[in-house]
């Protein structure tokens, strides 16, 4: 079967040559991917790489790590495309996996709350010193400079101080424009919880940005 390239021997383009994937719905592109079209896979990546990467980047706030996690998300989704249930929105599915992948990383990275002043379980001065975390140099590498510039706006800094769940809910609501019902599906929580997350997140942002209004 020659779906994405000219059929060998015929010299004529296959239907896929003429097909404009950008006009198809997600469900139609998924069906083509399930039929084995590589272009369909690439179309799905093209459609969702920015929103998925942005969501994860705002969750983990580390560009390199966000790329790895976004890549993991797409690999998981695209390798499981046969198991995708078309009754649900594709966007909900991929955002759900992106959110879970980001949260898993945060949980792995911070098994316990860390303190810069040493472990709260330290009994002697030596134990305290041994468990004290020394912040790394403040000199920025070019990559860090770019990251800080990207997430360096007042509102991005304030967003970084929110709970990960609040951040996801607010990004999905305000940046991606997803309705509350879909956010509930993505985050796997009741609708009321989503409203609470968004309300509390906004309220915290208002408090964090209060100094700008003075």
């Amino acid at each position, binding site marked *: *079967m020659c*779906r994405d390239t000219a059929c060998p021997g015929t010299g004529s383009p296959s*239907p*896929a040559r*003429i*097909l*404009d994937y950008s*006009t*198809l719905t997600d469900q*139609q592109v998924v*069906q*083509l*991917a*399930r*039929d*084995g*079209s*590589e272009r369909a*896979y*690439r179309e799905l*990546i*093209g459609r969702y*790489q*920015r*929103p998925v*990467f*942005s969501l994860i*980047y705002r969750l983990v706030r580390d560009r390199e790590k*966000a*790329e790895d996690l*976004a*890549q993991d998300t*797409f*690999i998981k989704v*695209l*390798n499981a495309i*046969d198991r995708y249930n078309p009754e649900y929105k594709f966007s909900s599915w991929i955002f759900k996996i992106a959110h879970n992948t980001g949260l898993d990383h945060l949980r792995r990275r911070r098994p316990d709350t860390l303190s810069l002043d040493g472990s709260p379980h330290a009994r002697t001065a030596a134990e305290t010193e041994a468990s004290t975390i020394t912040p790394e140099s403040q000199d920025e590498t070019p990559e860090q400079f770019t990251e800080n510039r*990207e997430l360096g706006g007042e*509102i*991005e800094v304030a*967003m970084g101080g929110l709970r990960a769940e609040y951040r996801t809910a*607010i*990004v999905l609501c*305000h*940046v991606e424009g997803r309705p509350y019902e879909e956010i509930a599906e993505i985050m796997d929580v009741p609708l009321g919880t989503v409203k609470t997350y968004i*309300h509390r997140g*906004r*309220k915290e*942002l*208002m408090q964090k*940005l209060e100094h700008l*209004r003075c």
Partner: protein
Amino acid sequence: MNEHNHPAADRLEAFVEGTLQDGDRAVLESHLLTCPACQTQVEEWRGLFSALSSLPQFDPSVGFANRVMEHVRIAPRAAWQEWTDRAGALAARIAPKTNYGWSLAVAFLALPILLGGSAIAWLVSKSYITTDALMGYTRDSIIEGLQGVGSTVITFVMQTELTAWVVANIGAVISTAGVTGLGAMLAGAGSLTVLSTWVLYRNLFRSPSRESDYALYSL
């Protein structure tokens, strides 16, 4: 409203978000006309909403799609998988959705089994009925039944006004258009039948998911 007769901050947030009920909204709007403090808060909420909705999306680095595709297994689905999917979808569509529906379906399906089983048990209990006699009787009955149905249908069709009109006019058609004209008319009617059957099949059973279909639509 709180003790100073100002609406709560949550309500101002809901007002800016546009999720307040019409009645509440009207009350709040009239309050805002005379309350500079609440007007300021509304402006602050608006500022936050505006700042949030103007947050940018970020691009991953160049070559992201290629790096993903290196780890993706593309396996075309076998034709039988498509048929099993369709069978599954059809079964899901016609399967009862409630316990009552399931009970009814089971009762309906069990009825012929019970009746048939009872009939077979009764027949087997009679010593004078042999298997050969039973098979022969069944075969003869089926043939007779089909013949009866066939003759009834043919008689019914031949007695309709349309058939009488077609038979009466067929000679006239042949004399004016010739045998070739009659053939062309039959071919036209046949094509229409095939086309209408295809439209029915396409809309009832076939989902528009094949790549060639989309290619046609996008031409």
